[in-house]
């Protein structure tokens, strides 16, 4: 039994190719931004831990 109906809209060759291109670029952008955030987060956390330690030392 054929369950999935034949797509009734013509997506258009040019539209399809462009869509894949834009979406891929946006996808890469999203991935870069996400890893950049992770990197920043990693250093940020490290920095703040250091600051906390310094503060602790000053208190002692």
């Amino acid at each position, binding site marked *: 039994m054929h369950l999935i109906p034949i797509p009734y809209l013509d997506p258009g*060759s040019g539209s399809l190719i462009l869509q894949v291109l834009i979406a891929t670029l946006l996808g890469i952008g999203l991935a870069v931004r996400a890893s950049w955030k992770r990197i920043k987060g990693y250093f940020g956390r490290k920095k703040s831990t250091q600051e906390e330690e310094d503060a602790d030392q000053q208190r002692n």
Partner: protein
Amino acid sequence: MQTSNGIDRLPASFRDPAGFLFLKNGVLYRQINRAYHQQYTRLLDSGLYRELVGAGLLVRHEESDQPPLEAEVAFKVIRPDRVPFVSYPYEWSFGQLKDAALVTLAIQKQAMKFGMILKDASAYNIQFSQGKPVLIDTLSFDLYEEGKPWDAYRQFCQHFLAPLALMAYRDVRLGQLSRVYLDGIPLDLTAELLPLLTRGNLGLLTHIHIHAAAQKRYAGKPVKRALRITSTALKGLVENLEKVISDLTWQPLGTEWGDYYDCTNYSDHSLENKKALVRKWTDNVRPDLVFDLGANTGMFSRESATSGALIISMDLDPAAVEQNYQAVKRKKEFNILPLLLDLTNPTPQLGWNLSERDSFHHRGPADLTLALALVHHLAISNNIPLPYFAEFLAGQCRWLIVEFVPKTDSQVQKLLASRKDIFSSYSQEGFESAFAGFFETIQAERPGDSDRTLYFMKRR
């Protein structure tokens, strides 16, 4: 398509093999075909249907015992809630089309969370109900397979992005191109009409300008390899479209009637009297549906709306309709629907066999029509003879509240300032005799200190 035993197949839903709409004894049904059974089951079982209906994004339906119209291919028959008044993108203001576009994208995002995708993105699948845009096509969802691109991307750009960009960056009146191009405005035409500076807008550069160039380059050529997009990339595309649409704005400034109410020919006291008359006469009729013709920004629609009726508040000025719609949103006036309509050239029957999209006339008549401060614009600016105007109104309503504005009125004087007065029959007597042929006057009153007269009439 008329069949025997009082069943009508609706002429607007024949393209999609998943199913179609039909009317039986005035009740709207949708047959779902067997080919769509998996999709329909996923829509309901996944919780997507409940989520979308709960958020007011999709029209509610009930499964029905009504026998299908084409039993050999049928899976189910459902009875969707009916939108109270059908309207079309070429009758919407900028803000209405923009909200319809954003709702389409919100639905697409939600669908992807439930393993589904919008298989089409037609502006005609969106209708205004309770003041908000809602998807009326329950069969718009397909199963989403990871890696599959969005087939409706092109349709979304043509139906929504193209007209919105043209309205925002070139001229708001270009929204009317949707009336010519029913499957959306061709992107090459859009790219040609848009100002050069839109190439500096990254969203419009890609989704319109490069998109149009890609369509031209690959026209008629098959895509050789299976193209894939990860679901993250597809989500990125939808969110990008959301941002591009959200950033498009149009301010209704410098309008034809923008400050019209500030310079009407009524004092505050008379204006209040006029409002009270509209309220009183509306309450007398107890209408379900009211047409307010030449509504401007909807001041008198709001008086009529206190009756609880649905008011279709129509004007030919895109700025007035936009202001009206923004007020509806702000004040949550769910029973007022502002629409763009030129009475001298109302929406005709359009599309395949001239029956896909309904004319303004086919969607009436209303129980009550308001035609306030309108007669002089039609009779003098557009040379419409008074009996023609009366006949037109008689086709639109059972009850009528109409205002006569005499030649002595400064607004009429303004219209006559640049032209020769060839309107010898434009007088109160001429007006009354023209309307007497179609209507019986129940009451006539002067709301105050001006020469204008308000009539409450019943169609003969």
